[in-house]
């Protein structure tokens, strides 16, 4: 009996250790490799150096690509916040037949728009709209892709805003847009913050859409530019890539902490408070 217990414990411990290693090793690589003189595709204690970062900051494409990522991320964020709050508010308040089905099918289809399946038609459409090699085009496609999810989550927040707030504003003569601005938006702020962060993360890490729609390297975001870091010998330039990866992941992590402190992440609607 004792022996069986012991082996069960050993088995469990090994399993947990494996799972932990699976998640920890890439993170360890991300933390160690940028400071290593000769980074490899394995985790090892670094021979400490900051040369990789110096090389990165001397690479003009790398820095400007971070700027491009910011433009795309913020552009998409603003787009989905403005359109998403208008859409979710109206969908929350106006009863139309088949509303739930509409929302679910939009949610389902959205994964196709930004996915590989619709790549060719999306590309052709952007050609017709003369939005190839335009950051606006990327923002529109990415925004459209995540909009259903945005509406879906925001609608939940809007639904949980008691109607008597709006009714009392209506009694005093406020018009719908005014009510949205004065009452609904401030109350849905945690939801909007969640959406803002989520939208930025989605765009920040997206490779496919900007890779297809942008031609000139000067407009490409970091996720695409990273793909171009090769040495003269045709090998991936691990020194540059690892340093860039760390810098690349920093803004998202920082933003998460900022928003979490300011608003906290919570989801409404599950439990009646």
């Amino acid at each position, binding site marked *: 009996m004792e022996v069986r217990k012991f082996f069960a414990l050993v088995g469990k411990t090994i399993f947990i250790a494996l799972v932990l290693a699976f998640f920890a090793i890439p993170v360890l690589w991300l933390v160690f490799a940028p400071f290593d003189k000769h980074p490899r595709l394995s985790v090892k204690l670094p021979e400490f150096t900051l040369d990789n970062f110096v090389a990165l900051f001397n690479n003009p494409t790398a820095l400007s690509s971070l700027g491009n990522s910011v433009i795309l991320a913020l552009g998409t964020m603003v787009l989905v916040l403005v359109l998403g709050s208008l859409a979710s508010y109206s969908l929350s308040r106006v009863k139309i037949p088949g509303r739930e089905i509409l929302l679910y099918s939009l949610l389902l289809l959205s994964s196709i728009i930004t996915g590989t399946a619709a790549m060719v038609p999306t590309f052709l459409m952007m050609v017709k709209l003369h939005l190839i090699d335009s950051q606006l085009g990327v923002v529109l496609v990415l925004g459209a892709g995540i909009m259903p999810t945005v509406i879906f989550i925001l609608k939940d927040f809007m639904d949980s805003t*008691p109607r*008597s707030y709006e*009714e*009392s504003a209506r*009694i*005093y*003569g*406020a018009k719908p847009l*005014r009510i949205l601005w004065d009452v609904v938006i*401030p109350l849905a702020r945690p939801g909007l913050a969640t959406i803002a962060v989520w939208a930025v993360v989605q765009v920040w890490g997206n490779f496919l859409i900007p890779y297809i729609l942008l031609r000139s390297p000067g407009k490409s975001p970091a996720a695409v530019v990273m793909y171009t870091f090769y040495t003269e010998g045709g090998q991936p330039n691990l020194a540059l890539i690892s340093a860039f990866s760390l810098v690349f992941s920093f803004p998202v992590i920082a933003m998460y902490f900022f928003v979490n402190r300011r608003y906290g992440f919570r989801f409404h609607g599950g439990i009646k408070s």
Partner: protein
Amino acid sequence: MASITTTNLIKEYPGGVRGVDDLTVQINDGEFFALLGPSGCGKTTLLRTIAGLERSTGGTISIGDRDVTELDPGSRHVAMVFQDYALFPHMSVEENIAYPLKIQRVNKDSRLAKAAEVAKALTLDGLLKRRPGQLSGGQQQRVALGRAVASNPEVFLFDEPLSNLDARLRLDARTFLKRLQQELGVTTVFVTHDQAEALALADRIAIMRAGRIQQIGSPREVFHRPANIFVASFIGSVPMNLMQARVEGENVIVGLDSVPLPTSARGLALGGQDVTWGARPEYLSLHSEEHPNAIRGTVTVLENLGASVLVSLAVGSQLLQVVVDEGLEPEPGTLGWVTVDPRRTLLFDSEGTRIDSLADAAELTLTGTTSAW
């Protein structure tokens, strides 16, 4: 300041349910008017239709001499206090009170001055910078009132504004509300399911049931002369005794005993007619010895009401309740004789309508004509 008139007002929901059913009411200028009824009777629907939050399906609503039936809520010059107060949680007390003025594009200095003035009148000074979440229930309720007052409306609409307060605070708030309404003199419509609240506050009460008005009258009228059994059983802190009875000459037979015919029904009740005899427990007297013209019963339950005791007696298969002063209550199981003042009792016919020689009950129900009691 304005009167409110609804004419044949109908609010029908999809599916044919009528929240308000062909309702004609005149609420006078400066009046404190209560809409009273059980939940689902349509009182809140009527209030919301007057406010414009619900569109009426038929009929008209006028405020003063303006027909507001088709107007937006914001153009009707009404202010409403909601059951949950609906204070904006992200705005301070000051901003909440000044919000109606912000919508009316009053400049910031004068609207904050107005908010401070209103807050002072409602004893909220010192709390102006707080958020609603930092206030007690009573303070929140006063902020909601303050916001209504600041908008300078022609009509106040209150949707159960006291129901979220605890019992003790509710009494204070009630007195406060009545004084405020008297000082401002603004026509006020007040929805409540609490008959004591309606009796205490209102100049006139409309008792509603299933979208229709059962009776309109002063608190005194609806208490003493309920138009029908529904009103009789709804009004009063202890329910009125309503007992199956039969008319025999100048007497009413209740159980095995006979009591004098109610004064109001004299000459109208027919011999042998099956009726419901109504008497408020407060107006009955209980005796421990046999009495002529009394109803005999066995004391079953005693309920302490504070300064008085509610005694329930079994009379045949029915129950008769009497309120007696403290210290005078009988022992359970003993016999008791209940005597009545015929001026304080009522008769209702088999349809539940009051049999009355002084004022026609049906007319009272339909037009709201008041009769001197």
